């Protein structure tokens, strides 16, 4: 085999390796042992047109990660989020499949909403869920409005069919966090 051919295949394999290996990584332990339970969550709700705070480093670990989204889907059912938010359509709770996020649609902003709770009935889950679980839940919630990559999302859950397959949900444009429109 000519030298050039061998080099090009090596390069190709390296590039492919970088693409592949983190998207399916199962991180089983969210937090190294011994750290305090939940570091104070920076409040990422910012009024008016202030610039958004720097994104949280943990976001990259959970966004578009298939195993985090699958865990989030399981927690979404188990922690009774379905009871209020249904399957994204909303009922007692707000709808999660539209792009309207009054308290911010970024993953760390959603984690803040889960952690601190929000008016009109959203309970605060701080100390009732671990931080890793909240991030997994936020990762799943973002898939309801099609924010995540389609190849990290599962088409359906093993339950009654309630929405079109998630691999085909349109990506909703994120409304700016402070838009007053409902």
């Amino acid at each position: 085999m000519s030298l050039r051919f061998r080099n090009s295949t090596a390069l190709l394999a390296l590039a492919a390796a970088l693409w592949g290996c983190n998207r399916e990584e199962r991180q089983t332990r969210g937090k190294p042992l011994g750290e305090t339970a939940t570091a104070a969550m920076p409040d990422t709700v910012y009024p008016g047109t202030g610039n958004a705070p720097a994104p949280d480093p943990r976001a990259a670990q959970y966004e578009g990660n298939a195993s985090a989204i699958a865990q989030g889907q399981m927690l979404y059912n188990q922690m009774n989020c379905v009871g209020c938010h249904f399957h994204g359509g909303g009922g007692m709770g707000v709808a999660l499949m539209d792009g309207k996020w009054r308290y911010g649609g970024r993953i760390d902003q959603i984690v803040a909403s889960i952690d601190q709770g929000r008016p009109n009935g959203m309970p605060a889950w701080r100390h009732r869920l671990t931080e890793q679980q909240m991030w997994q839940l936020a990762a799943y919630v973002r898939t309801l409005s099609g924010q995540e990559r389609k190849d990290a999302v599962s088409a359906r859950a093993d339950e009654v069919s309630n929405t079109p397959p998630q691999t085909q949900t349109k990506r909703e444009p994120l409304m700016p966090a402070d838009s007053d429109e409902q």
Partner: protein
Amino acid sequence: MRHEPEFADDLSALRTHAFSYRSLTWWGIIAFMVIEGAFFALAMAAYFFLMAQEQEWAPRPWSPPDLLAGTLFTAVMLLSEVPNTMIKRAANAYDVAAVRKLLPVMSAIGLLLVIIRGFEFNSLNVFWYDNAYGSIIWALLFLHTTHIVTDWGDTLVLWQLMKTPHGEDPRRLVDTDENALYWRFVWLTWLPIYVLIYWVPRLFR
């Protein structure tokens, strides 16, 4: 020990092409038919298996598929057997001119069928992601659609091929004969699927 050849009989007089079971490609086409036949038979077995799981077939509130598009498709398909038989006879009679006239007709019929199939897909009254009933109905229709489209593609390629000087080669007539045979297989497999998609959901309401 190296064997010396002892010449028995001379085969130079044998013909270089033959129709039906004497042709090699005929056995190839039959093998592909058996494969796709097994595919359809298993898909229908899955259909009945899922029907047994459901309490009511065409489960409420999904109403059974509308009949118009499906029945129109079946009618046109059965009518297409007339030009299909004519092409087969023409090919067997080495009538290249007739074949060159009929192939565009078959291609047009193929196009018409594909268009009707488009209407069929949105007359099913159920989506593939609604329930297992919807999934198997869409699967059966999708499988047969790949079947129709591939054979329509073959007919188009054959039509273009026959227009070129290659059309004179008698082997191309053997190909036309076998393509006509395969077309017959396509609408033979459609009949049970038509009953399963359009009529069975009506009987068990």
